[in-house]
């Protein structure tokens, strides 16, 4: 080896071989990196060294035996990985391990992947000979309770990897070492089946287990693997789909992906059975005399073209999907604007983060996460408000857990005692709907105590004085009264946040789904500006977006007021540019938002609709009203992968492919555009969404829809969308790119607003705020507040997850969560059916008594058609973003006496 070593490296000698290694890594890591094998069992690249198995013993200079997984490399060190002294120790250890391990390798699911086998072979130990060495094992029954994996502790070698993963990476700690001596084993709390423990079924321990003690239930080995992106949430984890024939048989995390580094949550790892599900739509359907008839694509497309052509103009509306790719959304909005001549296009972002786009657009100039997910782990302080991160963005939550382990402070603001509260230094349990007050109350403390970053405020922001005046209203007494949070806690939170070197705010629907959602977002933005926490690493304002491509759908202009890249439809120059590019006349006025579209359909003004991949009936507030509106349409096309509740109301249903059968790009919540790739051929005659839209456009005589593949579409996107200007297929093949990425030389932007804000004058804008109560406050008749949310195990309206049997086993029906005191006042017992009634309707579900909720507040999710929570919710909406108030409505609860 040579002299061109940098300062971070040391040179050492392993078995006579000169190698270089980065300072700080262990001997074992250095050896493995250089393809030198040292037996090891309790080592995992993702964990701090365990030092438990003692198999990785090596000899160093002074003749000492050390565990190579715990000993750091040193300059000039000489390491011997094998000699008779070492081998004796190793053999002894390995024999003992094998002796205590049930040996029936041929039937073991880990056969050929088992590290113990590997080591036995390496050391030349014959398993058969060990038979008589085995003590009589006390029986530990196999635990098969989890729907996705089994625990067979008879094979456990107590390496502790699973315990460490579950505690140090997940922060869940479902399992630990228990009992003593011979009986020592990995146990859950009270030694119950794993299903009844706090385990979140992520399967990380199953991946980490070196032997067959933890194995997936499905052990079919794939014949090939395809690198792609998880289709569920906005985190955008990298995965490999394991394929056998035309069936997906497993999923594993992509350790090279910077977002998840190989980790996955339960949905990503185990939620793939919807892809090959027998209930998938596989042929186009046309409704004749109230019944769906199977037809060919030509029939369906001709039929649509004939009918839809009658509605060119503003009597047509399109609902796009945050599940579709950027290319598909681009084509879809182009179709709506260029072919149908209207800007009436919107999608489910309206229900979640349009408040973000609107609010941050005003204050920072760009409505997306300012920083990246990977930076969270290094934040000195994390403020998680209105996000149940471990359930909704599990992999992002791993960053929070890591930050806490690195000594960072965690402040959680949530009316419910969510899992994150366990890790929090401060938990602010404010009343639902009082976020502005809480945040402004904190900011008042920061200003009064002069803890704000005055140079940042002076140099980079504007409008501070007006904002400061509006803080007057938020004295501690009023804030405590309105939010219900103790004064001292507010002061402590304010001080902690303001005095941390880097503080990162994470938020989600708890902030946006209110009739004052945009104000909430502005409050968050004010706090970040005030403390100078924008434009630097591990800080920022970070809206966590829900659907896998909701960021991309917004970027692609599936919104009624902007073209791709947030270019206003009412800006004359931009209109010109698109008219030229698309060679057509475009509508000059903004279209209707999703709630307005539904309203107009109800009034008969919108008469035809094309809905892609959205189950509006379950996701929109006040569902009965939505059904009425859809029934009034003269012509409705629904394109989806299953016959959803919404599809049943359509005139034509088109079978789309899942992500596994097509390719394209998704943009995750941190603006990272990533390639997903086709793994199997489309099921039945299902087709990619972009193909379908292009075919309809062509039948309507439109030009500019002759794309052969998604690569060509992405090129057109880049040519018209400055923030995507440098994003091309061949670049993405090497890894994702974060927008803004203006040209082929630009490597993208991981942190926004570094030197100036994206606003017109480059300044961050403070905005004054005042308290606006929620639209429907509890009263004598409807005394409870209903707030809604999600479960880790289900996704959105359940179109995909409810097709996965195991996920239904983990969370198969909805509960009404209620405080035990409220329950006893109403004479309601655990697991008893109750009726929840609002001014708009009623839902029946089982009660779940839990201290996680304060008195007066109940909680439900909206995943289930059987208990359609959104019958209850209020469609009162934010005046700016039109996001409905899904997080707050007044209800009453009655014991169900039937």
């Amino acid at each position, binding site marked *: 080896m040579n002299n061109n070593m940098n300062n971070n490296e040391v040179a050492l000698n392993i078995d006579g071989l000169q190698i270089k290694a980065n300072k700080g890594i262990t001997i074992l890591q250095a050896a493995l990196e250089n393809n030198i094998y040292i037996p090891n069992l309790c080592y995992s690249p993702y964990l701090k060294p365990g030092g438990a198995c003692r198999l990785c013993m090596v000899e160093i200079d002074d003749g000492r035996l050390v565990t190579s997984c715990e000993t750091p490399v040193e300059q000039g060190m000489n390491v011997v990985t094998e000699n008779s002294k070492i081998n004796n120790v190793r053999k002894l250890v390995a024999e003992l391990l094998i002796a205590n391990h049930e040996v029936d390798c041929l039937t073991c699911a880990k056969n050929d992947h088992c590290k113990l086998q590997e080591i036995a072979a390496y050391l030349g130990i014959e398993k058969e000979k060990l038979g008589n060495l085995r003590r009589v094992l006390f029986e530990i029954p196999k635990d098969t309770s989890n729907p996705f994996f089994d625990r067979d502790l008879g094979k456990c070698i107590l390496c502790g990897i699973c315990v460490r993963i579950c505690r140090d990476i997940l922060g869940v*700690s*479902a*399992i*630990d070492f*228990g*009992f*003593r001596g011979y009986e020592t084993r990995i146990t*859950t709390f009270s*030694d119950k089946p794993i299903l009844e423990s*706090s385990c979140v079924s992520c399967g990380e321990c199953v991946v980490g287990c070196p032997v067959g003690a933890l194995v997936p239930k499905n052990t079919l080995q794939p014949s090939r693997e395809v690198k792609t992106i998880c289709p569920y949430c906005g985190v955008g984890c990298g995965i490999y789909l394991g394929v056998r024939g035309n069936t997906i048989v497993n999923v594993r995390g992509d350790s090279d992906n910077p977002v998840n580094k190989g980790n996955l949550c339960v949905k990503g790892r185990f939620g793939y059975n919807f892809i090959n599900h027998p209930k998938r739509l596989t042929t186009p359907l046309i409704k004749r005399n109230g019944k769906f008839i199977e037809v060919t694509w030509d029939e369906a497309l001709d039929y649509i073209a004939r009918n839809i052509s009658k509605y060119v103009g503003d009597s047509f509306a399109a609902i796009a999907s945050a599940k579709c790719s950027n290319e598909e959304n681009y084509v879809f909005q182009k179709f709506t604007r260029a072919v149908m001549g209207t800007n009436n296009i919107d999608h489910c972002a309206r229900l979640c983060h349009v408040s973000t786009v609107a609010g941050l657009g005003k204050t920072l100039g760009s409505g997306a996460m300012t920083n990246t997910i990977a930076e969270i782990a290094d934040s000195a302080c994390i403020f998680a408000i209105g996000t149940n991160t471990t359930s909704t963005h599990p992999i992002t939550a791993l960053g929070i857990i890591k930050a806490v382990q690195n000594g960072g402070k965690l402040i959680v603001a949530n009316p419910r005692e969510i899992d994150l509260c366990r890790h929090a230094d401060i938990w602010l349990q404010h009343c639902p709907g009082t976020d502005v007050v809480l945040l402004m109350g904190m900011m008042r403390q920061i200003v009064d105590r002069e803890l704000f970053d005055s140079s940042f405020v002076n140099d980079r922001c504007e409008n501070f004085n007006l904002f400061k005046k509006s803080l007057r209203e938020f004295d501690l007494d009023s804030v405590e009264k309105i939010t219900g949070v103790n004064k001292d806690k507010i002061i402590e939170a304010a001080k902690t946040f303001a005095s941390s070197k880097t503080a990162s705010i994470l938020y989600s629907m708890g902030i946006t789904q209110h009739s004052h959602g945009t104000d909430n977002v502005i409050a968050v933005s004010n706090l970040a500006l005030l403390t100078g926490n924008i434009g630097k690493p591990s800080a920022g304002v970070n809206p966590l977006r829900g659907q896998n491509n909701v960021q991309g759908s917004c970027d692609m202009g599936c919104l009624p007021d902007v073209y791709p890249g947030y270019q206003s439809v009412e800006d004359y120059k931009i209109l010109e540019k698109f008219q030229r590019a698309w060679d057509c006349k475009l509508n000059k006025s903004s279209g209707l938002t999703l709630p307005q579209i539904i309203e107009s359909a109800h009034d008969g003004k919108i008469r035809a609709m094309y809905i892609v991949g959205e189950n509006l009936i379950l996701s929109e507030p006040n569902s009965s009203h939505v059904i009425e509106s859809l029934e009034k349409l003269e012509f409705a096309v629904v394109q989806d992968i299953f016959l959803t509740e919404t599809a049943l109301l359509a005139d034509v249903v088109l079978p789309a492919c899942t992500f596994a059968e097509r390719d394209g790009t998704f943009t995750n919540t941190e603006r990272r555009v990533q390639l997903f790739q086709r793994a199997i051929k489309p099921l039945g005659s299902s087709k990619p969404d972009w193909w379908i839209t292009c075919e309809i456009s062509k039948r309507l005589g439109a030009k500019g829809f002759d794309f052969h593949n998604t690569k060509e579409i992405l090129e057109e996107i880049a040519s018209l969308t400055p923030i995507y200007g440098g994003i091309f297929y061949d670049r993405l093949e090497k890894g994702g790119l974060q927008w803004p990425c203006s040209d082929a030389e630009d490597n993208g932007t991981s942190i926004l607003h570094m030197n100036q804000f994206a606003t017109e004058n480059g300044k961050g804008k403070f905005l004054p705020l005042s308290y606006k109560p929620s639209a429907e406050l509890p009263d004598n008749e409807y005394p409870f507040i209903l707030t809604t949310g999600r479960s880790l195990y289900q996704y959105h309206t359940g179109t995909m997850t409810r097709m996965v049997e195991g996920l239904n086993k983990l969370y198969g029906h909805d509960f009404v969560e209620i405080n035990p005191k409220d329950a006893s006042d109403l004479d309601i017992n655990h697991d008893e059916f109750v009726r929840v009634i609002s001014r708009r309707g009623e839902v029946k579900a089982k009660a779940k008594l839990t201290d996680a909720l304060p008195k007066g507040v109940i909680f439900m999710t909206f995943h289930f058609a059987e208990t359609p929570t959104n019958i209850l919710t209020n469609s009162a909406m934010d005046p700016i973003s039109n996001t409905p108030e899904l997080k707050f409505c007044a209800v009453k609860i009655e014991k169900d006496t039937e």
Partner: protein
Amino acid sequence: MGKDLREILSFYKGDRSNLIPILQDIQANFGYLPENAILEISKFTKIPESEIYGVATFYAQFRFTPIGKKHIMVCEGTACHVKGADQIMEGIERYLDIKEGETTPDLECSLESVACLGCCALAPCAMVNEKVESNLTLKDIKKLFSKNSK
């Protein structure tokens, strides 16, 4: 059963090092470590419940079920073992329909094993509440429970 859980916890700061003393206090008060008490301790000390359970199972002194009115400790010392303590244990398990370490649902009887009771000459033996029963046979089992001893 004097103090309630909150009262016990109020004597402690909630540090990690408080764990064993808290467990001991709770056992002294309730006679065992109830599940919901462990969950409360977990909230109080921020130690995960699985870890508390792991620690508690490491020490023989902690129990996880309440003691029955009649508490039976079957000797598993060497002499008793040789004289068939295992059969006695199994016999009682069958009779009460519980396993070693458990308590009958009506909280009448609980069953445990102990090391040598010091009456090896009278093996196999067992202790029922404070009284030693010796030279046990399978036939004696019924009597152990029918007798009106307290």
